[in-house]
C-alpha cells in the first residue's frame, strides 16, 4: 500500500474536480457519495499505508511524484514524505475528516440557507482535505506553503459559505486578512531560510541547520512562529477564529478545530531542528501558548454562543500544544493534537446535531433540558466534554494534557509558571465546560428540539466517542513508540496527583454555581464584575484594539486619499493620450483618396530626404 501513498491526496482532489466541473448539476445523493467517499477511500489508503509503514520499521518513506519546476539550482519536487509525525497528521485528517464529511452529508442535506449548495460545499471540503494533506505530506517547504495557502483559501470559502449574509462575508474576509499577516511573516521566514541554506527541502534544511548562526536561527524561528500563530489562532492573531464560526458547523469541526488550526503546531513540530538551535524562539512559542491558553479560557467562560465557546476552547487547547512544543514536550504536543482532533470534532459535531435539532439556535441560554430529548448528542457532548476537561484515566484528553503539564513543570526556564498557568487554565476549562453542559442540557426546556438525525449523523458521533475515550490508550500504545516517549512521569508522583485533581475542582465548583445553587449574582452584578465580564466576553478587547489601531486608521487614510494621489500620474498620462488621440482622429476621414494624397506627400518627403543624403 505504501507505494499508493499518492492516492491519499489525489482522491480528494479528484473528488473536488468531479464536483467542481459538474457545477452542481449532479443529484444530491451522488454529490454526497463523491464528497464523503473520496475522503473515505483516502482514509482507507492512508490506513493501509500507515500499517505498512509502521511494520516496515523505517524512519521515513518518501515518494517523488514529479519535479515542480527547475530554475538553476532550485528544483523543488512534488514529493510526499511520510514519517511518524506526518503519519499521525494524515491519519487525523483523513480519518476525522471522513467522519466529519459523513456527518455533513446529514447536516448539510436540504440545508435551509443554501439548499443548492451541497455540491459547492463538498467541493470546497474535498479541496480543503487535499490542501491539508499536501501541507502535512509535502517533502519541501514550498509544497507545504502551497498546502498552507490552499487551506487558507478553503477556510475563507467555507466561512463565507452562507454568502447571502454580509456578516459572514465579513467574517471570511477577517479570517483571510488576519491569517495573511501570519503568512507573510512565514513567507519571509522561508525566504531567509532559502537564502541561508539554499534549499527548501525540509530534511536537507534541518540537516544543514547547524550552519545557521544563532541569531539567524532565532529570526527564522520567530518568523515561522508568526505564520503558525496566524494559522492556529494564537495571540496576537487569534481574533479571526471566533468569527470563523459563521461557517457551517462541519466546517468548524474539520477546519477550525481538528485540522487546519493545528497546522501551526505541525509547522513548529516539523521545524523542530530550527527551534532546537534557537532557544529564544522556542521560549516564545511556549509564551504564546501560555498567553493564549489563559486569555481564551477566561473568554470562553463568558460566551453564550455554543460554537463560540467551543472556538475559544479550541484556541486554548492549541495553546496547550504550543506550550508543549515550547517546553520540549514534543511528542506530548502531537499526542494532544490527535486527541484534541477527536474530542473537539466530537464536540462540534454533537453541538451541530443540537443546533440542527433546534433549528439553528446557537445560544446556550435558549437551550436547556435537552439531555432527555437528544440522548445521542447529549452523550457525545458529555464524553467530549470529559475529554476536554481531562477526566482522569478514562478519557484521552487526560493522557495528553497531563503529559504536557508534567513536562512543563520540569522545564528549566520558569517551568513552575507554565505549570501553574496550564493548571489554572485547566480549572477554567472545567468551569466553562460545566457551564456549557449545565446551561444547555439541564434545567427547564426553552426550545423544543426536533431530532431528525439519521445514521450518517449519529454514526460518526459514536465512532468519535470511542476515539475520544480510547484515543488515550491508542496514543500511549502506538505513538509512544513512533514519536518517542510521551510521558516520562509516573501518575503517582505528587505533582501528578495535583495536576490530576485540580481540574476536577472546576467541575465541583461549576455544577452548583450554574445550577443556581450558589448565588453569585452580587459578585457578577457589581460594577467591577460586570466590567470584567464584558471585558472577557469581548475576547479581552483585542478586536476593539485592532479596530482602533489598524482598521480605523486604514479606513481614514483610504477616505482621505479617495482621489488617489498616486494614480494622478497615470490619469494625466491617460488624459494626454486621449487628447492626442482626438487630434490624430481628425486626419481619419475615412476617405480613401485623402489617404492616398497623404501617402504621396509622404513619398515626396522621403524621396527628398533620400536624394539630399
Amino acid at each position: 500500500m505504501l507505494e499508493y501513498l499518492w492516492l491519499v491526496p489525489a482522491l480528494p482532489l479528484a473528488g473536488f474536480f468531479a464536483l467542481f466541473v459538474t457545477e452542481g448539476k449532479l443529484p444530491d445523493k451522488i454529490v454526497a457519495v463523491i464528497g464523503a467517499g473520496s475522503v473515505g477511500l483516502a482514509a482507507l489508503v492512508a490506513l493501509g499505508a500507515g500499517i505498512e509503514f509502521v511494520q516496515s520499521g523505517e524512519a521515513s518513506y518518501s515518494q517523488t511524484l514529479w519535479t515542480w519546476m527547475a530554475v538553476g539550482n532550485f528544483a523543488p519536487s512534488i514529493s510526499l514524505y511520510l514519517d511518524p509525525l506526518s503519519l499521525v497528521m494524515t491519519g487525523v485528517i483523513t480519518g476525522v475528516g471522513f467522519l466529519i464529511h459523513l456527518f455533513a452529508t446529514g447536516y448539510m442535506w436540504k440545508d435551509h440557507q443554501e439548499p443548492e449548495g451541497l455540491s459547492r460545499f463538498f467541493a470546497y471540503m474535498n479541496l480543503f482535505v487535499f490542501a491539508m494533506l499536501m501541507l502535512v505530506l509535502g517533502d519541501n517547504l514550498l509544497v507545504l506553503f502551497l498546502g498552507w495557502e490552499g487551506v487558507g483559501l478553503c477556510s475563507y470559502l467555507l466561512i463565507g459559505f452562507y454568502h447571502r449574509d454580509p456578516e459572514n462575508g465579513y467574517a471570511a474576509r477577517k479570517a483571510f486578512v488576519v491569517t495573511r499577516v501570519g503568512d507573510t511573516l512565514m513567507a519571509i521566514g522561508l525566504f531567509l531560510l532559502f537564502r541561508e541554506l539554499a534549499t527548501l527541502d525540509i530534511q536537507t534544511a534541518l540537516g544543514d541547520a547547524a550552519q545557521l548562526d544563532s541569531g539567524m536561527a532565532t529570526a527564522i524561528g520567530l518568523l515561522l512562529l508568526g505564520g503558525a500563530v496566524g494559522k492556529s489562532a494564537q495571540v496576537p492573531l487569534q481574533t479571526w477564529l471566533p468569527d470563523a464560526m459563521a461557517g457551517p458547523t462541519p466546517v468548524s469541526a474539520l477546519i477550525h478545530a481538528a485540522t487546519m488550526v493545528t497546522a501551526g503546531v505541525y509547522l513548529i513540530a516539523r521545524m523542530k531542528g530550527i527551534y532546537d538551535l534557537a532557544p529564544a524562539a522556542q521560549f516564545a512559542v511556549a509564551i504564546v501558548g501560555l498567553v493564549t491558553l489563559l486569555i481564551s479560557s477566561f473568554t470562553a467562560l463568558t460566551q453564550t454562543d455554543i460554537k463560540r465557546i467551543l472556538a475559544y476552547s479550541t484556541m486554548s487547547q492549541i495553546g496547550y500544544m504550543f506550550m508543549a512544543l515550547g517546553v520540549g514536550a514534543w511528542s506530548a504536543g502531537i499526542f494532544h493534537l490527535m486527541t484534541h482532533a477527536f474530542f473537539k470534532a466530537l464536540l462540534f459535531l454533537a453541538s451541530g446535531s443540537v443546533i440542527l435539532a433546534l433549528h439553528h439556535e446557537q445560544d446556550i441560554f435558549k437551550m436547556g433540558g435537552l439531555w432527555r430529548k437528544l440522548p445521542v448528542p447529549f452523550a457525545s457532548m458529555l464524553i467530549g466534554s470529559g475529554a476536554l476537561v481531562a477526566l482522569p484515566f478514562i478519557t484521552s484528553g487526560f493522557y495528553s494534557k497531563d503529559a504536557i503539564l508534567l513536562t512543563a513543570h520540569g522545564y528549566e526556564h520558569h517551568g513552575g509558571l507554565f505549570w501553574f498557568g496550564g493548571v489554572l487554565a485547566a480549572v477554567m476549562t472545567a468551569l466553562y465546560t460545566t457551564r456549557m453542559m449545565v446551561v444547555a442540557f439541564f434545567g427547564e426546556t426553552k426550545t423544543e428540539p426536533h431530532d431528525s438525525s439519521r445514521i450518517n449523523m449519529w454514526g460518526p458521533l459514536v465512532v468519535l466517542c470511542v476515539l475520544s475515550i480510547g484515543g488515550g490508550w491508542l496514543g500511549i500504545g502506538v505513538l509512544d513508540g513512533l514519536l518517542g516517549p510521551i510521558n516520562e512521569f509516573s501518575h503517582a508522583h505528587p505533582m501528578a496527583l495535583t495536576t490530576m485533581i485540580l481540574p476536577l475542582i472546576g467541575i465541583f465548583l461549576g455544577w452548583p454555581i450554574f445550577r443556581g445553587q450558589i448565588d453569585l449574582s452580587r459578585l457578577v452584578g457589581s460594577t467591577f464584575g460586570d466590567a470584567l465580564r464584558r471585558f472577557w466576553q469581548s475576547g479581552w478587547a483585542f478586536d476593539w484594539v485592532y479596530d482602533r489601531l489598524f482598521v480605523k486608521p486604514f479606513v481614514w487614510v483610504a477616505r482621505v486619499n479617495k482621489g488617489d494621489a498616486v494614480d494622478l500620474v497615470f490619469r494625466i498620462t491617460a488624459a494626454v493620450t486621449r487628447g492626442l488621440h482626438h487630434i490624430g482622429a481628425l486626419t481619419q476621414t475615412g476617405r480613401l483618396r485623402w489617404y492616398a494624397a497623404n501617402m504621396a506627400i509622404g513619398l515626396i518627403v522621403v524621396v527628398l530626404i533620400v536624394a539630399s543624403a
Partner: protein
Amino acid sequence: MAIEVPVEHVLLVAAALFLLGLLGVLVRRNIIFLLMSLEVMMNSAGLAFIAAGAKWGAPDGQIMFMLILALAAAEVAVALGLVLQISRRFDTLDVDAASELNG
C-alpha cells in the same frame, strides 16, 4: 539582341507611368477607375525592376516583376469582390461612400 538605352530613360518612363496612375487614384471617384490606376502604378513598378535587371543582365528583375504580378492578381481578385459588395450595399461606385472608418 536587346537594345542598349540609358537606364535613366526607362526609369523616367516608369516614374511618369507611376505618377499618371497616382493622378488617377487621386482624381477618380469611381472605384473601377481607381483600381485600373492602381494596376498602372504596379505595372510601372515592374517596369523599374525590369530596367534594373536589364542594366546588369540579371534575371532578378524579372523575378521581382513576377512577384509583383502575383501581388497584382491577388489584389485585383479581392478588390473586385469588394467592388461588387460595395455596389450592392451602397448602390453606388463612389469610393467616398464607403467612409465609415472615419475617426
